[in-house]
């Protein structure tokens, strides 16, 4: 895979895993079907052959995968675990919230857990129940756990390298509908930061998003420009916990109108956190209309119904116009 050439997000993810495993012999991969099959999305294709003895097919047990990763890390390894679909993180939640995220705190720093958990998520692929759920709000609510959510190949690479290098646990959310549909240049940059990143310039309104919804925002921004003469900037949060307050507030203060867009459900969604942080940081200086476009408070619906559930370009455009012009 040539550096500089356009690659898919999936290829960038795989390359990050390869490079992380080359960089440190302590990095091991584990998860359901990650070995011989190379993962249900083929993210780990070829890695078993390339790194024999360091890639493990596990039994079908998410709690065990995460719980064992805790032990592997204590035993000196750097586990990168895959949960086949983020919707099944719930089967591992007691291990994530009560154990993985708290070990450093509980042991007063005696143990720290350099564990990365990769999990595909997000809608648009007509997946069965649970497979498309966006659980980032539930994960960002766990102290001690970092949450990364790339939306582009270069970020998939850079953020995954950063996650594996991090001395503490990182939940790494991979946008499944972008795996093969988004291409971009690959920079083997593993020194960058996980700060929020402006993916499009624009003076009138700021669209804040992460993961697959970033692309919804980019399309909406295009439409706002051509159809309405509105210049929308798009901020990709990239790291959902801890949120990059500075990057977020600077970008918002410069535009003074904000729309937060996400695929997770509205109530207690991560958008609420973004709104609250902006209010807290900027309340004394500017008054700022902030709107949300999120999934409604229903279970993720099956089949074609997801088109009515996911934030659409139209909904983002409407919200942006409202933020700019008022009702």
């Amino acid at each position, binding site marked *: 895979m040539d550096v500089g050439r356009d690659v898919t997000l999936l290829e960038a993810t795989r390359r990050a895993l390869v490079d992380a495993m080359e960089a440190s012999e302590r990095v091991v991969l584990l998860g359901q079907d990650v070995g*011989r*099959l190379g993962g249900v999305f083929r993210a780990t294709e070829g890695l078993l052959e390339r790194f024999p003895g360091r890639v493990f097919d596990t*039994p*079908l047990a998410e*709690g065990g995968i995460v719980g064992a990763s805790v032990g592997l890390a204590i035993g000196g390894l750097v586990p990168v675990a895959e949960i086949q679909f983020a919707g099944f993180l719930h*089967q591992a939640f007691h291990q994530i919230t009560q154990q993985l995220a708290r070990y450093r705190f509980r042991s007063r720093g005696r143990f720290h857990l350099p564990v990365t958990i990769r999990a595909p998520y997000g809608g648009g692929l007509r997946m069965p129940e*649970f497979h498309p759920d966006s659980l980032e709000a539930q994960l960002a609510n766990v102290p001690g756990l970092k949450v990364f959510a790339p939306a582009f190949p270069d970020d998939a690479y850079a953020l995954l390298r950063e996650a594996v290098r991090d001395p503490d646990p990182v939940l790494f959310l991979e946008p499944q509908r972008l795996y093969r549909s988004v291409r971009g240049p690959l920079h083997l940059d593993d020194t960058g930061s996980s700060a929020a990143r402006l993916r499009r310039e624009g003076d009138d309104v700021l669209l804040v998003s992460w993961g697959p919804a970033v692309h919804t925002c980019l399309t909406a921004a295009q439409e706002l420009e051509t159809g309405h003469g509105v210049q929308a900037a798009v901020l990709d949060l990239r790291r959902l916990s801890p949120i990059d307050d500075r990057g977020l507030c600077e970008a918002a203060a410069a535009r003074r109108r904000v729309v937060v867009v996400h695929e997770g459900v509205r109530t207690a969604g991560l958008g609420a956190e973004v709104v609250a942080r902006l209010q807290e940081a900027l309340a004394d200086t500017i008054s700022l209309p902030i709107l949300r476009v999120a999934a*409604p408070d229903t279970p993720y*619906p099956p*089949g074609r119904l997801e088109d009515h559930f996911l934030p659409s370009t139209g909904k983002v455009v409407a919200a942006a116009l409202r933020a700019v012009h008022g009702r």
Partner: protein
Amino acid sequence: MTATRDWAREWAEGDGQPLQLLGHDGRILRPEVARPPDDLVREGLRLMLLSRAIDERCTNLQRQGRLGLYAPVLGQEAAVVGSHLAIDPAVDWLVPASREQPAMLRHGWPLDRMLALMLGRFEAARIPDDVRMLPRQQSIGSQLPHAVGIAWSASIERRDDVTLAYCGDGATSEGDFHEACNLAGVMQVPLVLVVINNQYAISTPIAKQTRAARLADRARGYGFPGVAVDGNDLLAVHEVTSQAVERARSGQGPTMIEAVTYRLGFHNTSDNPSLYREPAEVARAEELDPVARVVAYAETQGLVDAAAVEAQVLEARAEVATALERALTYPTPGPDDVFRHVSAEEDQRASE
């Protein structure tokens, strides 16, 4: 039909091989075991052929882009049908995993409704109110504690329904499996748990799922009987399940049945099994085809002949075609359906 023996004990005392009543050529191996009534065999064969016709049609529809993901039953028909034939759909509960189509049909879910689900017409696919069956479960193993709860409720209320639950070999690794089995044993609930060991969980072979020689061995640790049966042998599966149902109904508690079979097809329509298993292995498994075996048995018993089987295959296909036409007349969902059934207050739309 009354079961003749204590199969779990017989199995435990044997050589560990799954119990078998029919040879691969359909010959009777154990003449001393009472045979099921002819009508039951005919019904079993009909359901197995219907299952194949559904697999065939749904796979084609998926390939044409007219249907979402499909997970075939192919190869597992005797395990599913043989076990379900042991319960009474009017009385007993069915708790499926996600690959038990013929059991769900026999339990009372009309075929056109099942196809409606595959076609994304969700309202029409609703399980009828008088059918005692849970919906398919996509979260592996999560249905098992529910099955224990249903069976437990029968004990508490002194009802005489039995709960028949299914899961795959992969599901036995989940925490829910352990918690369900343990509770079922402690409460001595009227549960029959059929573990369909089709050798694979997507690409993961059973050897990577467990080091135990047989999944059925686990039952002993939970304090109830377990028995491994040849899952491609309709008669054997039916026989051991009948006995387990009898035990459950008479208050003697749960039984675990491991139906040893093989997933002849792909995991689902987006899977490519050639990446993880050898064609020779699949070819060997195809020789043990459960449909061929029951056909051979039925032929030697004079229940059917080759022409009748051929006619039944065509009938099954026609039945699927008719049901499919019906299914296509049901309404496709609209935006409002996202908000329906979220809670009892139907009109209080979830905020958008």
